[in-house]
C-alpha cells in the first residue's frame, strides 16, 4: 500500500508530532498511521526524498515506535556511477531487512517472477500514457488508474488497464501539462468543466514513475537501474535545464499549450524550481501558472478562478 495523502484524514494526530509548517503528505500519513489505517501492514517503508520524509522516518523510528517495523531507503540525488553503486548496495540492505521482516528469503525464480510482473506493469503504464491522446476516458478516470499503480499489485494493475474501454475519442478543449507531486480528482473535474484537458503530466505520482524495463541478471542491479533511469525529477536532483528541455519537448509532442504547476504547501523540492521553470518556459512560448494547495481541502474559489483565467488565456 502506498500513502500519498489518504482521503478523509484530519491533520490532528499528525499535528501532535509535526509543526504547522510541515507538508500535508507527512502530517496526514502520520495521522493515518496513528488512527489505525496501517494496522494490517507488517512494515512501514519511508523513502528518503526530502527533509519532511526524513523527519517522519526518524520520528517514527526513534519516538513513536509503531508495532510495524520502520524501514528506510535513501534515494541518491544524482545519476552518477557512484550513485548507482550506492543505490544497489542500499537496496541490498533493504532486501536483507525485508527478509527478516517477512521471514522469506526469495529464490532466483522468485526475483525473476517479481521483475517479470513489475516490468509488465511498467510497460502497461507506459503504454497507457502513449495511448492517452486517443483514450475515451476522462482525466479523472485516467489518473485514477495511473494512481492505482501505487497501491495495487502489478498483476491487479495490469488487469485494470486491460479493462479500460477500447473506444477512442478526440480530446476537447485546450491542453495543459500539469506538474507537481499529486493532483487530487477534483482538480481534473474542474479543469474539464473549464473546457480544458490534461494533455500530459510531470507528477511525482504520475509520469515520473514510468520506469523503463531493465534486463540485468542481478536483481539488485536491475532494481537500481530501474530507479536510476526514471524520468526527470527534482527530488532526484535533475538539473533545472534538463527539466525545462524535457518539459518543452513533451509539451510540444502532446499539444499542451501551458504548464500548470500544482504544488502542496511547503514542498521545497518543487517550489525551488518554479521561478526558473517559468522563466525558461515563458521564453520558449509556454505560459506557466503556479498554484499551491493544501491536500484534502476543496479547491478554494480563488485558486479555481486563477486556473480558469489561465485556461482562458491559453484558449
Amino acid at each position, binding site marked *: 500500500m502506498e500513502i500519498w495523502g489518504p482521503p478523509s484524514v484530519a491533520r490532528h494526530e499528525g499535528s*501532535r*508530532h*509535526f*509543526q504547522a*509548517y*510541515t507538508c500535508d503528505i507527512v502530517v496526514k500519513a502520520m495521522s493515518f498511521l496513528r488512527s489505525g489505517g496501517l494496522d494490517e501492514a507488517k512494515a512501514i517503508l519511508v523513502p*528518503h526524498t*526530502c*527533509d*519532511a520524509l*526524513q*523527519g*517522519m*522516518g*526518524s*520520528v517514527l*523510528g*526513534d*519516538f*513513536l515506535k509503531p508495532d510495524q517495523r520502520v524501514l*528506510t531507503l*535513501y534515494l*541518491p*540525488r*544524482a545519476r*552518477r556511477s*557512484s*550513485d548507482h*553503486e*550506492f543505490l544497489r*548496495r*542500499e537496496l541490498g*540492505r533493504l532486501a536483507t531487512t525485508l527478509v527478516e521482516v517477512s521471514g522469506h528469503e526469495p529464490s532466483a525464480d522468485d526475483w525473476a517472477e517479481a521483475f517479470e510482473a513489475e516490468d509488465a506493469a511498467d510497460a502497461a503504464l507506459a503504454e497507457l500514457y502513449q495511448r492517452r491522446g486517443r483514450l475515451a476516458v476522462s482525466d479523472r478516470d485516467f489518473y485514477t488508474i495511473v494512481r492505482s499503480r501505487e497501491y495495487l499489485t502489478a498483476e491487479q494493475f495490469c488487469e485494470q488497464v486491460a479493462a479500460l474501454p477500447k473506444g477512442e475519442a478526440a480530446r476537447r478543449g485546450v491542453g495543459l501539462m500539469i506538474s507537481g507531486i499529486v493532483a487530487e480528482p477534483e482538480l481534473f473535474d474542474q479543469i474539464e468543466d473549464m473546457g480544458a484537458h490534461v494533455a500530459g503530466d510531470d507528477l511525482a505520482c504520475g509520469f515520473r514513475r514510468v520506469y523503463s524495463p531493465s534486463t540485468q541478471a542481478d536483481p539488485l542491479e536491475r532494481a537500481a537501474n530501474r530507479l536510476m533511469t526514471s524520468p526527470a525529477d*527534482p527530488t532526484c*536532483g535533475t*538539473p*533545472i*535545464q534538463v527539466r525545462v528541455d524535457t518539459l518543452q519537448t513533451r509539451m510540444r509532442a502532446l499539444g499542451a499549450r501551458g504548464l500548470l504547476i500544482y504544488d502542496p*504547501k*511547503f514542498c*521545497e*523540492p518543487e*517550489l*525551488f*524550481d*518554479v*521561478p*526558473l521553470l*517559468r522563466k525558461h518556459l515563458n521564453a520558449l512560448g509556454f505560459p506557466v501558472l*503556479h498554484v*499551491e494547495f493544501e491536500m484534502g481541502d476543496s479547491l478554494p474559489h480563488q485558486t479555481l478562478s486563477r486556473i480558469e483565467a489561465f485556461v482562458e488565456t491559453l484558449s
Partner: protein
Amino acid sequence: MTMSEALPHYVESNRLEHFVNYEILGKTALRVQRWRDQWKFARRRPRPDSPLNPPLRSVVHMKEIMSRHYLEGRYAAGVRKVAWVTSGAPTEPLQALGYFLVYPENHAALCGVRRKAQSIAEEAEQAGWSRDICSYARTDIGAMISGNTPAGRLPRPDMLVCCTNICQTVLHWYRVLADYFECPLVLIDTPFLYQEAHEHEIAYVKRQIEDMIAVAEEIAGRSLDEKHFEDVMTNARRGAELWLEVLNRSQHHPAPMTAFDGFIHMGPIVDMRGEAVTVAYYERLLAELDERIERGIGAIKQERYRVLWDNLPIWFKIGEFSNWLAERGVNVVASTYTFAWGELAPMIDPTRPLDSMARVYLHPILNRSTGHKLDAMKRIVDEFELDGVILHSDRSCKPYSLGQIDQRDRLVKTLGVPALLLEADHNDPRDYSDEQGSNRLEAFVEMMEARA
C-alpha cells in the same frame, strides 16, 4: 541571455585591483580599525545598567578576520578560483588547491544580523520564490539577482559544492545557483543516518569527495599537493578541537561566554576551518575565556539559570534576546548548533584524509536521527548542569525542527527540565511575533523559577 547580462554586479577583478584594494589598502584599514576598537575597548567603562558583563576582547580580532575574508571576496574573482560551498561541505581539498571559499549561508546570516535579510529576501520573492522556502536561500538568491548585500560584493563562483549533510534544501538551492552562474555543481550526497553509518554509505561519500577533487583540480589547473592537504587537515582538526574547548569552557559557573557569543564567534570555524588564522584565533579566545574563569567573570552579571539553545539562532534577535534573558538572570550557555563544528574533531585524521573526511562529513548532527539529537541534548543538559532548554522551532530549517515536539516532551518527562518550543525563523522577522515570543519566554523563566 548571458550570465553577465543577467547578473551585471558579478564582475571580475584583476591582480592590480586585488593587490591595491585588498592586500595594501584593505588590510591596512582593517588593522587600523582593529587598533581603534582595541583602544576603545581598553577605555570602555562597565555599564552599571547592563545585565551583561563587557564583551570578549577577542571579538575585535574576529571582526578583523571576518571583514578581511569578505573584503578579499570582493576582489577574488579573476584572481583566485572561487567555490561557493555549503556550510557542511568537505572544503579542505579546495583550500589546499587555493580556492577562495564563499559560504552563502554565512552570508545570509550576516544579512540577518544586519537586519537586511527581509528586504533582500523580498527581492527573491518578487522574482517568484515562495515564502515557504528557506529564508537563507531566499536571502542569498535575492542578493544574487539584485546585487544588494551588506558584504559589498560577492565573487562569481567557478564551481559550486553542495553537501546534503545539513539539509536537502541546499540541493535545490544550488541547482538554482548552477542555472544562474552556468558553472559546474558538484554534489556530495550524504545519506541520512537513521542509525549508525554503514560501510556502503562511507564508501559512497569518499568516492564523491574523490570525484570533487578531480573536478576542482581541473578547474584550478593544478594537482592537489598532498603535503599541503595534510597541513590543511591538521589545521582543520586543531581548529575544531579548539572550538570544542571554547564551547566546553561554558561548563564553568558562571559561564564565561553565552551561546549568543558562540553564534558570532563561530564565523572562523565555519568560513575558514583549515586555515592557520582560525587556529590562532581560537587559541586567543580560549586564553581569554580561561582568564575570565580564573577571575570569576561570567558573561552575564547574575547567572541564575543556565539554558540550552537548540537549532539555529534567530539572527535578527540575537542582541535583544541576549539582553532580555540576561536581565532575568538567564544565561544561554550552550547550543546544539555551535557544537556541530567542534564535536567531530576527534574523527579528523590528517594522515588518512579521505577516509576520515568521508566519516566526518557523514556525521554532523543535522545528518543524524532525531533520537541522536535528543541524546545530545540530554548529555549537554547533564554536563553543563542546565536548568532548561529553548528549542527554536525554525520555520526555515525543517531537518533541525522536525522532531522537536517529541524531543521537548521527552526532555520534560525524562530530565524534568522546562523546555520551550519557540516558533520563529532564523532570518525572516515576519515569522516571529514579539508579543507571543515574549509571553512564552516569560512563562519559561517562571517555570524555572518555580522549580528552583
